[in-house]
């Protein structure tokens, strides 16, 4: 066996209205070259102007990653030529990033493990290029999107650990509202580096893997690479320090031919931007913006609400969902039935509508009311489902919906008995069958009574009456 060391470089696009250094829109999916101006196109004479919100969100993230926040942060120029980089240098942070030496509490299969964060720095994204035939087509809409780059220490040992980390990390950035964490659209991107060595020998030669656009692919690529390198080490082959690309179709990594020149980025302090000194008041506001992170919240849900890990995981996956659940519990809902209604029918209904819980008419108060009606036996389960659908789509309370439709459960035994009588008299054959010992038609008869009652009968009671008659 060998030791494996895996580290990650994660880029998250920060959620802001405008770009990092100019007032163009920071928006995804617009027609090419519509969100551009002289600044983000690298025109002569223009200067970068730092976006306050990009700074704020960076610090929120740095703090959530338990980073030490440098007293002074400095922007640097990283020099390299590429057609998608208008100035041919990237403004980033090199020597004095916003945050250093943090950690992230990761969890895999119920086990916590601290992943150290080397640093987190703010930088600008490059444009996009489409390669077709003899030409490459440049679109600079993405140029200048604020990016926070988070670099971990090589603390991962397996691809599974990394996959779990990326899922937890994605939830974290969404909880904090700093990034939407969409790996497919590239708002969250991950490069991995992996090195393998004989036990106790420390890090081996580092191989970097790029082109990983889902957490699953990151796992697959790392597993592939781990095997490839194991085999090489076993055969005493030399592992080249290089960058490899994940080929999603062939499910393997391939060597990216090294660039024509060795890189020397010639970092130096960006003279167009003064250093940034986070002051006490600002840091206080960053502290106030902190929230309980998903992994911690999930574990609290398990103990505080006695939920299974599955339920807790589901409920804490999105912050608004977890908030909804907790307010419902505070509001008097039974924690078990609230969990099961949220994970079951509510989730199903929201999925169909492709909406999150906060984007509908469903409020904690209405949800609580619905569960109360059910608990008190004023409506039955199928009715509750119908009511739920309506209060998601319409601005009405559960009570209102039940009253409007006359869906309250029938409590009156006389009425129920009359229904049963009617059904039994019309279904003589079924009655015969039951009397001869075949209980199968009971369900059918209950169904008939329910139908006759317009769904309002309590099925349990109906069953009681029918079996009583027989």
């Amino acid at each position: 066996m060998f030791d494996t060391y895996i580290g990650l470089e994660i880029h998250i696009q920060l959620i802001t209205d405008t770009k990092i250094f100019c007032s163009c829109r920071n928006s995804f999916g617009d027609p090419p070259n519509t969100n551009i101006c002289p600044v983000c196109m690298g025109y002569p004479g223009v200067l970068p102007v730092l976006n306050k919100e990009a700074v704020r969100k960076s610090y929120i993230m740095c703090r959530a990653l338990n980073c030490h926040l440098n007293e002074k942060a400095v922007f640097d120029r990283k020099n390299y030529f590429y057609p998608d980089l208008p100035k041919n240098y990237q403004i980033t942070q090199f020597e004095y990033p916003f945050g250093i030496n943090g950690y992230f509490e990761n969890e895999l299969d119920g086990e916590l493990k601290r992943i150290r964060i080397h640093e987190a720095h703010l930088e600008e994204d490059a444009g996009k290029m489409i390669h077709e035939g003899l030409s490459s087509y440049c679109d600079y809409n993405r140029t200048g999107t604020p990016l926070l780059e988070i670099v971990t220490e090589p603390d991962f040992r397996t691809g599974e650990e990394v996959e779990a980390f990326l899922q937890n990390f994605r939830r974290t950035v969404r909880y904090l509202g700093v990034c939407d964490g969409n790996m497919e659209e590239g708002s969250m991107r991950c490069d991995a580096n992996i090195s393998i060595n004989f036990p106790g020998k420390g890090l081996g030669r580092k191989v970097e893997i790029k082109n990983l656009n889902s957490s699953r692919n990151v796992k697959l690529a790392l597993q592939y690479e781990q095997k490839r390198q194991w085999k090489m080490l076993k055969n005493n082959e030399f592992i080249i320090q290089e960058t490899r690309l994940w080929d999603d179709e062939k499910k393997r990594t391939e060597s990216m031919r090294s660039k024509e020149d060795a890189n020397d980025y010639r970092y130096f302090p960006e003279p167009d931007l003064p250093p940034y000194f986070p002051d006490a008041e600002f840091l206080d506001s960053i502290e106030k913006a902190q929230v309980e992170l998903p992994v911690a919240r999930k574990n609290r849900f398990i103990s505080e609400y006695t939920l299974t890990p599955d339920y807790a995981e589901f409920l804490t996956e999105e912050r608004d969902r977890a908030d909804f659940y907790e307010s419902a519990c505070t509001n008097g809902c039974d924690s078990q039935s609230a969990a099961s209604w949220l994970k079951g029918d509510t989730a199903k209904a929201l999925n169909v509508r492709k909406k999150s819980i906060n984007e509908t008419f469903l409020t904690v108060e209405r949800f609580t009311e619905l569960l109360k009606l059910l608990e008190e036996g004023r409506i039955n389960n199928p009715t509750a489902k119908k009511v739920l659908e309506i209060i998601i789509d319409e601005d009405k309370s559960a009570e209102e919906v039940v009253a409007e439709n006359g869906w309250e459960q029938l409590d009156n035994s006389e009425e129920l008995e009359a229904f049963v009588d009617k059904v039994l008299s019309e279904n003589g054959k079924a009655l015969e069958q039951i009397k001869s010992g075949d209980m199968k038609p009971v369900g059918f008869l209950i169904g008939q009574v329910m139908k006759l009652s317009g769904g309002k009968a309590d099925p349990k009671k109906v069953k009681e009456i029918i079996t009583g008659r027989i």
Partner: protein
Amino acid sequence: MSWNTICGSRENADKYRAYIGEWENRIHSMLEYRVEHCEQGENRISGSLLSGMPFAAKDNIAVRDFKLTCGSRMLENLVSPYDATAVKRLKEAGCIPVAKTNMDEFGMGSSTDNSALLVTNNPWDTDRVTGGSSGGSAAAVAAGLVPFALGSDTGGSVRQPASFCGVYGLKPTYGAVSRFGLVSYASSLDVIGIMSRDISIIENVFNAVKGQDLNDQTSIEYRDSDSLSLAEKPVFSVLKNPEGLSLEVDEAYRNAAALLREKGYEVREIELPVLDYVVPAYYTIATAEASANLARYNGVRYGYRSSKGETPSELMKKTRDEGFGDEVKLRILLGTYVLRSGFQDRYYVKAQKIRTRIMNELDDVFRTSDLIMLPSFPVPAFRHGDESMSQYQQKVADKFTVTANLAGIPALSFPAGNYNSLPVGLQFFAPRYGEKMLLDAARIFENDYPVMNPQGFKTAEEIIG
């Protein structure tokens, strides 16, 4: 000031155009001029002393719908899509941009002969250079083509041509004038400067353009209360042993010091040991920053593009080889070299530390004197192609000017008399926010060293008269 009335009528504009044309045949100071802009004079702003005044801007300062060539083939056909903040503020004060002036390519040079587009001659002697890099602006002002012009000063590029052409040239405190719209050469040194034959115009223009700009985060707030004023009896410092000066400049420097003493001012003799290191420190920092600032010119989004090149990398290399002149290439190479890993500490970091030393030494001087008087350049305007003034020699000669840029302090070059029919300029240094001090100090000499007129010069009255 009849400059305020030269614009506003067709007739005056025609006379003005003719006057510019006459001079331009001899000196070629402008890459583009459009006098029709001032025919209507619609920009009148009441209460503004600058209202209706035409001006020229060095061609590395963005004026919307004018070219922005920076004296380079690389940008020969680029039309600016925006206004520099300084230009915008001048327009708001009622000024009218009429011309873009020639310059050393991207501000790199001390003669304007490094322009890839035009050769500019000195109005005092067309065989001679105007200085640089704001040579076109200095020549246009000296010849009376505009009442003032904007230039840029990274290492003396406003003051040295001002001294070669016999006009005033102000290099403001770093950050006092927004750099937004000034094409960057060396970002931590660059500042927009003002040239004029009239101290009051410089003062008014400076007041119109100064102050913080949201588009330039290195710009500084400049309230009236920040402005330093000259003491009633200011103390001047001069160099004890100025080295390497030509006879004319040496004489002018001594005469001016003597004159100050005659007028009853205290003149102290000082040494500035760090002067021996300022030029290498300056060229290290300036070229390092320039190597990155000029990386954007690669033929992809605007400007010149080579017709060769099968890959983006080849396209960029060919474009940059064909689009840049020798001096620019030299400085890009130098700047790239001093930033390379392994060399950075020896050159770039060291230079930044020397910069700190310069600031400290100057602070010490300003503790005991109000202003420092220095030569602007060791020689007066030299001839085109003068072999004793090689590109290398020109760089070494920058030592008196670059010091102010490295320290970020304001400086003003003023005419200090003509010697052998050529103007000689000297300069004052003041502490930061000392622009008013500089202008008032220049007024001390105003009668002794009046601005002289090159042959063929006409005042605004004479032009329209």
